[in-house]
C-alpha cells in the first residue's frame, strides 16, 4: 500500500439555520472574547444578519468586528487585523465570509496567538503550537478553506502569494449554513463552485491521492454536477445551496490531504499577476489542464464519469448542465473525454467565461508568457500534478486558455 496521510480535525455543523448554534459553540470553547472577521460587502448586504442575531442572542452582541478584508487579502490587511485582535484581547476567532475572509482569519490568528511577526511563520509546518480556536462560517461554496490546513495571502509589494500551511491552521469548527449563501451573485456562485469542482478533479488524480480522499472527491464532484447550475440560476434554492456548500467542504477535506495540480498552479499565477478571481480562473484552465493530464489520468477521469452516470444511469444531462446523456462506454478514454466535455458544458451552463481574456487578462507577449510559466512551474500545487509539466507545456496552456 502506498504511504499516505489523512487528517480532518474540524467539527462540521451543516444545514439550514445551523448558525443559530454559534453562541453555544463559542461557550463550549470556553471563550469569552470572540472576534468576528468579515468583509464590508457582507456587512452592507445584510448577509451577516443571522450571524449577528445569533451572537446577540447568546450574549456576544457587542463583539469586536474586523471588516476591512479585501478580496484576495494581503499582508497589510492581515497585520492590521492581527493588531486589532491583540488589542481586543480576542480569545477566539470567527471568520464569516468567502475564502479571502477565512484565509485572513487563519493568518491573523497566527499573529494573535504566536510571538513575533506573522511573516516569520510563512512556510509549511513552520510552527508547532495550537492557535486560538477558529470558527469558520463560509458564505461562498468553493474554496474549502473552512476544512483546509492552508491559507494564502497576497504580498502586493512583491506581486506574489505567501503560503502558510500547518496542521494548526485547520478551523476547529465549520458551520455550513446554506441560508448565508442566498445573496451570492450568480457569477460568484458559479466561479466558486468551479473552484470546488477543480479541487475534486485535481485531488482525485493527484500524486498524493488516497482512497479516503477519493471517496470524498467522487461524491463532492457529483453534488456539484447535480446542483451548481441550479444554485447559480436560482440562488434561493436552499437544497442546491446546501449541496454545493457540502461539496465544497468535502472537496476541501480531500485536497488538503492530497494536494491539487497544474490548474491551481496556473490559476495562482494568473490570479497573482492580474487579480482575476481564483474560482473563475480555475474554471477557465480546468478543461485544458485535464486534457494535458489525460495520458496519465484518463482512467481516473473515466471513473469520475462512471460514478456520475451510476447515480442517474441513462438520464439526460440537461438538468446537470451537461449536453450528453449520462451513459458510460466500455472504453476508459471515451469516458474520460465525456468528463472533460461535461466540465466545459457545466461551466457554459453557468455562463462562466471561457477564456483568460474574458476575465480581463491583457494580451501577453511571449516573454511575459514564459515568465508566468516559470512562476507556475514553482507553485507548490504543481508538485502534485500527475503529469510532469515543462515551462513550454505551461506556456502552451496559458496560450491555449487565453
Amino acid at each position, binding site marked *: 500500500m502506498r504511504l499516505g496521510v489523512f487528517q480532518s480535525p474540524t467539527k462540521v455543523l451543516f444545514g439550514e439555520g445551523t448558525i443559530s448554534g454559534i453562541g453555544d459553540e463559542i461557550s463550549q470553547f470556553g471563550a469569552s472574547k470572540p472576534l468576528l472577521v468579515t468583509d464590508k460587502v457582507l456587512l452592507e448586504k445584510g448577509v451577516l444578519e443571522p450571524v449577528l442575531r445569533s451572537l446577540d442572542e447568546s450574549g456576544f452582541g457587542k463583539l469586536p468586528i474586523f471588516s476591512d478584508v479585501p478580496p484576495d487579502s494581503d499582508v497589510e490587511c492581515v497585520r492590521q487585523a492581527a493588531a486589532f485582535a491583540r488589542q481586543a484581547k480576542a480569545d477566539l476567532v470567527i471568520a464569516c465570509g468567502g475564502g479571502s475572509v477565512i484565509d485572513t482569519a487563519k493568518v491573523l490568528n497566527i499573529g494573535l496567538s504566536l510571538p513575533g511577526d506573522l511573516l516569520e511563520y510563512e512556510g*509549511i*509546518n513552520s510552527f508547532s503550537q495550537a492557535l486560538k480556536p477558529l470558527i469558520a462560517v463560509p458564505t461562498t461554496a468553493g474554496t474549502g478553506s473552512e476544512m483546509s490546513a492552508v491559507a494564502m495571502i497576497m504580498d502586493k509589494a512583491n506581486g506574489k502569494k505567501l*503560503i502558510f*500551511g500547518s496542521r494548526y491552521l485547520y478551523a476547529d469548527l465549520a458551520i455550513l449554513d446554506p441560508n448565508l449563501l442566498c445573496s451570492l451573485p450568480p457569477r460568484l456562485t458559479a466561479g466558486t463552485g468551479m473552484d470546488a469542482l477543480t479541487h475534486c478533479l485535481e485531488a482525485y488524480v493527484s500524486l498524493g491521492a488516497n482512497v479516503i480522499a477519493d471517496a470524498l472527491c467522487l461524491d463532492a464532484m457529483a453534488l456539484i454536477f447535480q446542483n451548481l447550475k441550479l444554485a447559480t440560476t436560482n440562488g434561493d434554492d436552499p437544497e442546491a445551496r446546501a449541496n454545493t456548500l457540502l461539496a465544497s467542504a468535502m472537496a476541501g477535506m480531500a485536497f488538503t490531504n492530497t*494536494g491539487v495540480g497544474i490548474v491551481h498552479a496556473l490559476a495562482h499565477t494568473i490570479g497573482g499577476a492580474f487579480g482575476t478571481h481564483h474560482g473563475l480562473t480555475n474554471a477557465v484552465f480546468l478543461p485544458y489542464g485535464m486534457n494535458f493530464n489525460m495520458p496519465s489520468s484518463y482512467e481516473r477521469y473515466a471513473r469520475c464519469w462512471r460514478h456520475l452516470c451510476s447515480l442517474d444511469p441513462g438520464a439526460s444531462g440537461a438538468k446537470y448542465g451537461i449536453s450528453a446523456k449520462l451513459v458510460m462506454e466500455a472504453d476508459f478514454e471515451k469516458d474520460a473525454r465525456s468528463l472533460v466535455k461535461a466540465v466545459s458544458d457545466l461551466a457554459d451552463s453557468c455562463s462562466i467565461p471561457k477564456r483568460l481574456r474574458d476575465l480581463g487578462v491583457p494580451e501577453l507577449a511571449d516573454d511575459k508568457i514564459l515568465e508566468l510559466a516559470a512562476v507556475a512551474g*514553482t507553485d507548490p500545487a504543481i*508538485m502534485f500534478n500527475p503529469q510532469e509539466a515543462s515551462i513550454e507545456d505551461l506556456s502552451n496552456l496559458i496560450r491555449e486558455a487565453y
Partner: protein
Amino acid sequence: MPVFSSTEELQEVMFTLWNEMKGNPEIAEKLISSRLIVQFQYKDPHGLLTVDCLDGKEMKIIVGKTELKPVIEMSMKADVAHEFWLGKVNVPMALMMGKIVSKGPTPKALALLPVIKPAYSIYPKVWELKGKNQRVG
C-alpha cells in the same frame, strides 16, 4: 537506530556533499543565481548546515552555528535527509505528512529541487567514503 552516529559524522557528510555540488558547475551556477541563503537544520543527531549564495557570485557552505539569517529554513530528521539524498523522499508528500518543515517562501524552496537532483548520484559515494576524508570526484 539513526543512520548517522554523531553530529560530526552528519555534518561531515553533508559538508562533503555540498562541497561536491559547489565543484559541479552545472549545479553550482544555478544555486548561486538563486541568491538564497538556505539553512538545513537536522535532528537525531542534531546538525546545522547553511548554504549562502546571497552575493550571486560564490557559494559558501557553513557548518554549525552562524549569524546569517536564512531566507529558507528546512528542518528534518537526519534520517529523512539521508533518504532524500538517496532519491527516496517525495518532498511534497513529506511536507504534507509533517516530516519536513519549510520556513520561508515555499515556492523558492521547491524551485531548488530540480537543481540539486543531479547530486542524488553523488551522495552514495559520499556516504560510502565517510570518515575517510577523501574527495569523491
